[in-house]
């Protein structure tokens, strides 16, 4: 057990966290598979709209990753395949018949192939592109993320210690896969019978729960070594699959947020519909987000599903009002990384947020907040400026390969010029991917 204290970061004290460990079961009527969860996906459809599916039946194969299959987590009918610009896939929606008829599960003995057949291969993501790794490839290092990424979600440790047996079984599988080492990073001591994994205790403010921050502190990314990441939730799923020799698509989801009447913990299925998860639990006009308020996906009806890698749903007030002479406001209830508001003296414990941008779009004015909230090994202002102009050569040197889009959200939050660095990062990393794979 080694301790790592991350400097920098930002506390964003929101209302509506899940505190009690009471699990409600929810079997959703609709589930969705979103293409944005899979970086660089070129889908080849094995089934089409209107077809019957069974649990674990492959729906999509990725042409850029031969053999990798995206499978259905439920049985029922593919109700729609939604496409956007240039007929690019947006989402696949499946109506659950709740009969739970299973697709035949092949177990060959090869870890990678078995996980792929069980629909669990996408648990892993490989750096630098944060992409599902190639089938048959083996990682050097696997980072297991057991951190509470967002302060609103339930402390994962509570669930991990309850599912301890499966967690250990999952870790055994990771150990078999990883050629060099498996690292576990958590905010608290993670109990596990497995003695070969290396454990790290992470402390720090948001976004210190992101794997990028752990990786650079523990074992920075090298071209010659493969670094994979996985979340605690998927380790438990792998453990359950090993133990039961059967599909496991269950997922613990914290439903949180300031516009949420009663924050709850659900045990549901991967890709569950957000409307079902939040039914009767929203107040006011609100926005449903899969993920946290700082990094999450909120979409139209086609994409309003739990994304593959989030364990949280956040409901934020979508009411926005204009303030007269806003620039004179004292701001005793306004949160900011700077100290320009009265709230820096009154220090309220929590703040109410809405989806207002809170300002006009301007050119970057680097007053130094970027450096203050930075927990990564980059020079943030220069990095963000390079993102804004899309300077791919500079970005490679400034460390784009060490990071993934979610790491940018803290910079988007604090930016006084209201840039969306997550979107800029995505554009840039997409372009780099195209450059290197064409």
């Amino acid at each position: 057990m080694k301790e790592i204290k991350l400097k920098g970061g930002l506390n964003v004290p929101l209302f509506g966290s899940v505190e009690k460990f009471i699990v409600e079961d929810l079997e959703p009527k609709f589930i969705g598979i979103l293409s944005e969860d899979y970086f660089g996906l070129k889908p080849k459809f094995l089934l089409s709209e209107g077809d019957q599916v069974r649990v674990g039946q492959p729906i999509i194969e990725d042409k850029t990753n031969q053999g990798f299959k995206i499978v259905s987590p439920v049985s029922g009918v593919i109700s729609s395949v939604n496409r956007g610009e240039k007929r690019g896939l947006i989402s696949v929606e499946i109506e659950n018949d709740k009969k739970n008829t299973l697709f035949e599960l092949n177990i060959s003995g090869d870890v990678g192939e078995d996980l792929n057949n069980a629909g669990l291969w996408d648990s892993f993501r490989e750096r630098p592109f944060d992409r599902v790794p190639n089938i048959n490839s083996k990682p050097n290092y696997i980072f297991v993320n057991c951190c509470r990424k967002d302060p609103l979600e339930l402390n994962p440790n509570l669930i991990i210690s309850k599912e301890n047996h499966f967690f250990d079984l999952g870790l055994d599988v990771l150990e078999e896969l990883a050629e060099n080492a498996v690292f576990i990073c958590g905010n608290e001591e993670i109990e596990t019978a497995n003695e070969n994994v290396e454990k790290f205790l992470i402390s720090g403010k948001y976004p210190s729960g992101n794997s990028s921050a752990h990786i650079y502190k523990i074992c920075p990314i090298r071209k010659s070594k493969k670094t994979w990441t996985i979340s605690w939730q998927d380790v438990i799923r792998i453990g359950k699959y090993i133990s039961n020799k059967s599909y496991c698509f269950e997922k613990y989801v914290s439903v949180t947020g300031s516009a949420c009447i009663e924050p709850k913990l659900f045990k549901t299925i991967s890709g569950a519909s957000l409307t079902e998860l939040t039914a009767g639990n929203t107040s006011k006009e609100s926005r449903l987000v899969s993920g946290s308020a700082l990094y999450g996906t909120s979409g139209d009806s086609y994409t309003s599903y739990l994304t593959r890698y989030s364990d949280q749903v956040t409901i934020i007030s979508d009411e926005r009002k204009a303030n007269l002479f806003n620039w004179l406001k004292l701001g005793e209830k306004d949160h900011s990384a700077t100290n320009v508001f009265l709230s820096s003296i009154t220090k309220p414990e929590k703040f109410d947020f809405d989806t207002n941008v809170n300002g006009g779009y301007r050119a970057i004015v680097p007053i130094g907040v970027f450096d203050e909230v930075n927990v990564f090994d980059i020079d943030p202002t220069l990095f963000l400026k390079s993102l804004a102009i899309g300077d791919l050569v500079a970005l490679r040197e400034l460390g784009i390969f060490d990071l993934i889009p979610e790491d940018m959200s803290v910079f988007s939050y604090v930016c006084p010029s209201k840039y969306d660095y997550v979107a800029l990062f995505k554009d840039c990393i997409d372009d780099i991917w195209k450059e290197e794979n064409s």
Partner: protein
Amino acid sequence: MKFLESFFDRNRPQKSNTFFYLYEVVQNFFFSSKVATTGKTHIRDRVDVQRIMVVVWLATFPAMFWGMYNMGYFGLDYLDKGGFSTTGDWHNSLIQLVGTDSSNHLHRFWFGMVYFVPIYLTVFITGIACEAIFSTIRRHEINEGAFVSTVLFSLSCPPDIPLWQAASGIAFGIVVGKELFGGTGKNFLNPALTGRAFIYFAYPTELSGDMVWVAGLADNGSIDGYSGATALGIAALEGMNGINSNFSWGQTFFGQIPGSIGETSTFLILLAGAYMVYTKIASWRIIFGTLAGMVVMSSALNLIGSDTNPMFAIPWYWHLTIGSFAFGLVYMATEPVSAANTNMGRWIYGISIGVIVVLIRVINPAFPEGMMLAILFANLLAPAIDFTITSLNTSRRMERYNS
């Protein structure tokens, strides 16, 4: 105010409209925007560029109000000593409205206002107009940065500056110092200082020497036994002895000296600096870096000494209070866009300002005031400083990544 709000909502132009950005900035003045977040980050910090600029603008108030009072103090004192009944130009009729009693606080303040407000208005209108016209034609957002540039430029002017010179200075500063390069956020020079440097070199007869630092002096002419010279000007000629016979350190620290409008009171400026550092708008690294550079360089020159140049002997605590060192330190050097952008870089940037300002003040025979030029030089150095600092980071990373 509902009616105003719905007026703005109803008349919101398309983004393709020529006047979209003009509309936006006017609307933002009255109401905060109601634009919703898109993308992955759903909540945003309440701070925006407008708010940042308002904080800096507010921070100039102590220096501004003291500046007006102080201008009145010296202006009336001069009129009194010379036995003049008029300032000799158009200001006079306005000043006479309240009175010219040189021991009356209100009269002093009014005198200063009559001189400062026209300068500020001229500069403000010219500066904002340049920004608005340029942004509308170039089709980028109108930035509140011009708001701050104009007030800082006004405060850096001498009291007796002709208004047309002030207007041409700020126009040069905004257009050449900023807009040609893309507007606030893309400027590599501090726009207010660019404008100040422009008028300094363009109109040297009106803007340097001993005649311009007291309002009314240039029009009425000098009187026997009265010097309108700044403490720095005296120091350049007569050294420590000269300053000591005219001012005490306390006077220079609290601002009872002639000088540019906003630069006189080191005390109030440092107070404003503390506020800006607390709000995290100004970088404390730059401020302490500059102080450190100045202290080390001036102490070194004290040690070296010189028989012919009296400036060598000025200790650091006098360098701090005389001239525009404090004003530049707090308001100009901390301008985030033209400063270095890395934390380490900010230290180096600050230190280089501190060193250069002492070098110019002491070693350079032509200009007694070095702060303006020191900051502009450091602005030019900033990209090189950042490049060096990130090279350390990038070369370490690439070595690791490729291994």
